[in-house]
């Protein structure tokens, strides 16, 4: 199994000379199994470049796993050219929206309304189908076992563990570990903390020993104090989780929009200095970076 980053930016695409190295496109990760099956994690603007690549290999069958429906994770979908070409097949997986009870088909339908996009849903000439994922309910696609788990974010967000060809990776989507909303002197503090600990423990169990952990890490520890509750993790939180779970490699992604290549280089240097004995490989996710597990 190998994977490749096509989009590493959080929130909004940031093209320009300051984001050439790490990339300006929003989240999209391509997974290719040893049997050449295609799985795509999220469809941010990075999928446009991936789609250009896929045009060379048609007909294609792609399994798309959507972590959540915030724009930066779905906005590239209408620009995925093979979706308009007959003979291709797309199976889109994602969670139900708890408020409307609607399935993941909403991610595309909302974007293809005539006021927002010139092409209507009935013009999708590829075969497109949708499947709702259920938390903790494993399913198999293209020889890969997928384990979805809900991770805290301001909207329902699924982290996906992918096991294939004897290798494993876990992608968090957007994730911030729930913090205690109570003060230590509040009576509810201890019980609530115990619930949080239980939830983190179960995540650690799920991702124990994965070959690659790809994690939302948008903020420095200092920035995080101002951005608590925004639904994103700090670099330090990602490292802490990776350590506890004994992962082999950690990829920090969902780069904060104002972060330049120089900023990210500097952050990487500082992290290596602050954590001299990591026990795993640390990477900053970079557009077009391809990893074979």
């Amino acid at each position, binding site marked *: 199994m190998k994977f490749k980053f096509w989009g590493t930016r959080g929130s909004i695409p940031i093209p320009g000379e300051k984001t050439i190295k790490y990339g300006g496109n929003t989240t999209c990760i391509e997974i290719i199994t040893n049997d050449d099956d295609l799985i795509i994690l999220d469809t941010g603007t990075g999928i446009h470049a991936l789609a250009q690549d896929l045009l060379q290999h048609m007909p294609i069958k792609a399994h798309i796993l959507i972590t959540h429906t915030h724009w930066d994770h779905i906005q590239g979908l209408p620009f995925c050219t093979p979706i308009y070409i007959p003979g291709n097949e797309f199976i889109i997986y994602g969670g139900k929206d708890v408020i409307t*009870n609607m399935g993941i088909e909403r991610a595309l339908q909302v974007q293809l309304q005539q006021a927002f996009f010139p092409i209507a849903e009935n013009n999708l000439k590829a075969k497109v189908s949708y499947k709702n994922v259920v938390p903790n309910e494993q399913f198999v696609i293209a020889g890969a076992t997928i384990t979805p788990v809900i991770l*805290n*974010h301001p909207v*329902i967000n699924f982290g996906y563990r992918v096991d294939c060809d004897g290798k494993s990776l876990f992608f968090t989507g957007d994730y911030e570990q729930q913090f205690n909303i109570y003060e230590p002197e509040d009576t509810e503090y201890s019980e609530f903390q115990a*619930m949080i600990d239980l939830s983190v423990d179960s995540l650690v169990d799920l991702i124990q020993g994965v070959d690659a952990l790809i994690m939302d890490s948008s903020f420095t520890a200092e920035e995080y104090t101002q951005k608590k509750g925004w639904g994103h993790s700090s670099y330090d939180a990602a490292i802490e989780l990776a350590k506890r779970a004994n992962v082999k490699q950690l990829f920090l992604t969902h780069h904060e929009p104002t972060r330049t290549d120089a900023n990210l280089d500097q952050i990487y240097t500082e992290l290596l200095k602050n954590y001299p004995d990591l026990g795993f490989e640390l990477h900053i996710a970079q557009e077009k970076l391809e990893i074979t597990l």
Partner: protein
Amino acid sequence: MSQISEQEILDCIEKMPAFPKSVSKIIELTSSMDSSAKDIIAVIEGDPVMTGKILQVMNSAFYSLPTKITSIHRALVIIGLNTIKNLAISIAVIGVLRPYKEPHFDSDLFFSDYFIAGLLHDFGTIVFTEFKAEEFEHALAESSINKSSLYLAETKYLGMNHAQVSQILALKWGLSEVIAESIACHHQNVPNNLLSSCIFTANQIAKQAQLGNSGNPVIEILSAEQIAIFGVPFNELIEELGDISLIKETVHHFIGT
């Protein structure tokens, strides 16, 4: 007199709106970026309809969670504050959510189970007030004149008592069998049901302390088994609690009286 059926109760509950006071409070709190999570959770927890409906969603087949979610806190850890807030707003504004499938899990007792059981155990009386007012008036009058327990009069006039209605509601909202069963028998002495004994005893304490009686003024006697649970007879238990004026004040503040 018309007897109420289980299906009728379920239909009534589906129509039940959240309490107006918490609806306006939720809208107010969620309109401000500065509202604390603590405050929002406190309002949701204080409204049994809102609490029940959120737990119903959490315990639906969609989430397929390995343990039943019996408190808003546990829901918060799983789906986060924003989704809880959005669910609460939907319930506040729309009144009802689309139906979800029934759950089938069970859980151990948490502190929050006592809270939920305490909050919901008399909810059946609200269903009666809302949808079977005339029959319930008769039951209240008979209970008051005869100084007899209300639940017996309810059974006579409605074919079912409020504890049984509350049980149906608890199961409908996806709460555990333990909570539902404890609610159902909170007027009886059921051996080995700690939660039920706690509700029963707390009820008698509330009446003794004049915190409220839910239309049922009769203070019932604790059984030997219930006394054994607390280690002392009822009057000593009251004495041990000491000055409960602060608790009384908190309760009144909580329910907005």
